[in-house]
C-alpha cells in the first residue's frame, strides 16, 4: 500500500484532475450536508463532521430507473451505466456500510445495478479526527480510520492530506494524480495513527453487542419493543439516513403514455412496507416494525452474512425526532436477554 501526501492548497487541483468523472462529495445546504454530484470546477470542502444523508445513493440511488417502456408493443429501453464516479470524502463508517450492503447485493445473484455502479466507482474516504457525539463505530467493528469498503483513505494531517491506497482502484487514482502528490514518510503515517488513536478516545458512547445477535430472536414477544416503539412516528428518517439500510420497492411510473420501472428506497418503518394486497399486515404496528429494524441489523444480517448491519455512525440517533436512541435500545436488549 502506497502512501502519498497532498498539500491542502492542491486539493482543488486534485479534484480538477478527476475531471470527466462524475464526482460525488459532501455538499453543504445550510447545516444539512449531503452527498451530491459536484459541479465542474468546484472543490468540495472536507471540513465537516458527517452528512445527514449517507453517501449510499452513489451506489444505490434513492430512485433508479431500471428500464423505460411504452404500452402496447412499443420499445423497452434499459439505461446503460457508463459513467465513472469518484466519491470523495466519505467517512469510514459509510464506506464500511457499503461493504456490508454489498454482501447482500452480491449474494446469491449479482444485482446488476449495484454491481455495475460499484465497478465504475472509486470510493475515497476521509478518516475522522473529530467523531460525533453519537458515534460508536468501534463498538460494531469499525473505527475512525477503517478502510473496509474503501479504495483510498485520506487523513487530515493539518497541512496535508495523507492518501493511502486500499485497492487497485485506489492505486490507479494515485497514479492519475501523481503530479500533485509527494511520497509520504513514516512520520506522516505515524501522525495519522496518533490522530486516529485520539479520535477513538473521543468516542464516548458504546454498545455492548455480545450475545445480542443470538439473543434477539428470543425477545420476540418481549415488552421492550412496545416501550421502544411507543413514541415512534413511523417515519423513514432512521432507515433512509442509515448507510446500511438497503430495502427497496419496485414500481412502475407513468408519464402520459410512457412509463418506467424504477426501484426506490423503501423503509421497513412504513406501515405499507409489509402490507398485503388483502389488507392484512403481518407487521401491523410500530412495535413489530421497530423490532424488525433492530433485529435485522443486529441479528438476521449477522446470521446471514456474519456482520452486524450497523456501522455506528449515529445518524438514526442524531436525527430521530423522538429520541429513539439505538445505543439505548441495544442496552435495553442486553438487559432483557
Amino acid at each position, binding site marked *: 500500500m502506497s502512501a502519498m501526501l497532498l498539500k491542502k492548497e492542491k486539493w482543488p487541483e486534485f479534484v480538477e484532475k478527476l475531471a470527466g468523472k462524475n464526482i460525488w462529495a459532501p455538499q453543504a445546504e445550510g447545516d444539512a450536508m449531503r452527498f451530491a454530484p459536484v459541479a465542474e470546477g468546484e472543490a468540495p470542502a472536507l471540513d465537516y463532521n458527517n452528512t445527514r444523508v449517507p453517501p449510499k445513493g452513489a451506489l444505490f440511488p434513492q430512485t433508479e430507473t431500471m428500464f423505460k417502456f411504452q404500452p402496447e408493443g412499443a420499445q423497452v429501453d434499459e439505461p446503460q451505466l457508463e459513467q465513472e464516479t469518484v466519491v470523495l470524502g466519505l467517512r469510514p463508517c459509510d464506506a464500511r456500510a457499503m461493504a456490508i450492503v454489498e454482501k447482500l447485493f452480491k449474494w446469491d445473484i449479482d444485482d446488476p445495478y449495484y454491481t455495475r455502479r460499484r465497478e465504475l466507482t472509486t470510493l475515497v474516504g476521509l478518516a475522522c479526527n473529530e467523531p460525533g457525539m453519537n458515534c460508536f463505530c468501534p463498538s460494531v467493528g469499525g473505527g475512525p480510520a477503517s478502510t473496509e469498503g474503501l479504495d483510498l483513505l485520506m487523513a487530515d494531517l493539518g497541512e496535508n492530506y495523507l492518501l493511502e491506497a486500499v485497492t487497485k482502484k485506489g492505486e490507479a487514482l494515485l497514479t492519475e494524480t501523481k503530479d500533485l502528490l509527494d511520497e509520504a514518510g513514516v512520520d506522516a503515517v505515524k501522525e495519522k495513527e496518533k490522530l486516529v488513536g485520539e479520535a477513538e478516545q473521543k468516542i464516548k458512547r458504546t454498545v455492548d453487542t455480545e450475545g445480542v445477535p443470538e439473543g434477539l430472536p428470543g425477545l420476540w414477544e418481549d415488552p421492550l419493543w412496545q416501550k421502544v416503539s411507543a413514541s415512534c412516528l413511523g417515519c423513514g428518517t432512521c432507515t433512509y439516513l442509515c448507510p446500511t439500510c438497503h430495502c427497496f420497492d419496485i414500481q412502475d411510473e407513468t408519464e402520459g403514455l410512457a412509463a418506467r420501472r424504477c426501484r426506490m428506497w423503501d423503509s421497513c418503518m412504513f406501515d405499507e412496507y409489509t402490507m398485503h394486497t388483502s389488507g392484512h399486515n403481518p407487521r401491523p404496528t410500530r412495535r413489530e416494525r421497530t423490532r424488525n429494524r433492530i433485529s435485522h441489523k443486529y441479528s438476521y444480517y449477522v446470521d446471514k452474512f456474519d456482520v452486524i448491519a450497523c456501522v455506528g455512525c449515529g445518524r438514526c440517533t442524531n436525527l430521530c425526532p423522538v429520541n*429513539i436512541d439505538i445505543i439505548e435500545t441495544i442496552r435495553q436488549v442486553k438487559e432483557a436477554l
Partner: protein
Amino acid sequence: MKMDLEQLRKTAAEVAAREEVKYLVGWKQGTYGYRVAPAFVEDAAGAAELIFSPLCTANLATYLTLAEQLPVPRGGEPDDRKVALMVKGCDSRAVTQLLVEKGIERDEVVVIGCPCPGVVDAALLAEKYPETEEPAEMKWDGENFLLIRGGEETKIARNEILAEKCRLCRYPNPVVSDIMLGEEVETWDLAEDEGVQELENRDVDGRAEYWAEQFDKCVRCYSCRNVCPLCYCQDCILDRLNPTWVNRSVNFSENTAFNIARAFHLAGRCIECGECERVCPANIPLGKLNRKLAREVRDKYDFEPGVDPDAEPFQASFKPDDPEDFIL
C-alpha cells in the same frame, strides 16, 4: 415562570393511576444532549420521570391518532380507555382541531394543560452551545433560559434561542384542558414573520428558486407528515398508487408535488406547532409554507383553526363574501 415539577408529577401520577386512563403522554429527559423524549406513563410510578422544560418542543397530540387500531380478538372488547395528554398552548390547538374534525371525541382524552412561556429551538441552541452526549436540563428563568449540564448553569437570553414558532405564538396558554398546571402566562409581543415576509418580497422566480433548492433536498421520509397531529388518515393519498397523486420516486417534481399537497391539506387546519419543520432531516423550512397559508386564512378569511371546537372546518365551509378578486 416557575414550573413546579412536583405538582406536575403528582397530578400526572394521579391521572395515570385512574382506571379510565390507558396511559398518559408527557415529556421526559432524553438519552443525550438536549433531547427530550415522549414518555408513555401507565402508572403512578412512571410519572416520576416526567418533566416540562423549554426543551419540551414535541407536540404530543400526534399520539392521539398515531396508535394503530388493531383488530379486536373475537369475544374481546376494544380498549376504549382514555389517553391523557400533556399539552402546551400550541399543542392544545391540535387537540381542539382534532375535536372539530372528529379525529377524537372529547371524552376520549384527558388534557393536562401546561401554560408555556416558549420553548427553545434545539438546533439553534446546539449551534450556539454545542451539544454533547451528556443529557442537559433546561429551565425558564424570567427573560432567560437556564441551561444546566455537568453541574454548570448557563444563562441564555430568551430571544437568542427561542423557537420561531414561539416568537409568533398567540396561544401560549392551552385553549382546551381538563387540568391546568401552574398559572397562565402572559402573551408577549409578536415578532414579524420575517421568514415568510422575506419570501413574499421576492419575485415569483426568486421564490421558485428558493423552494426548488429546498424541495430538492427532500428525502421523502414522511416524518413531516407522520409527526403532524393533523395528518392522521390511515391511508394517506400521498402513499396511494391508485390514483397516483404523487409518484413514490424521489426527484424534484414529485418532491414538490408532495410538499404542495401536504401543505395544502393543512390549509385552514395547521395550528402552527412547527413540528414538521423541526423533524425534517433535510432541514426544509416547512413551517414557512404552513404559516403562509395560516396567515392567509386568518387575514383573508378571518378564520383560525384549533381555537373553537364547534367551528365549521375551514375547507368544508364558506362565506358568501369570501374573497374572489382573483376570479375572472
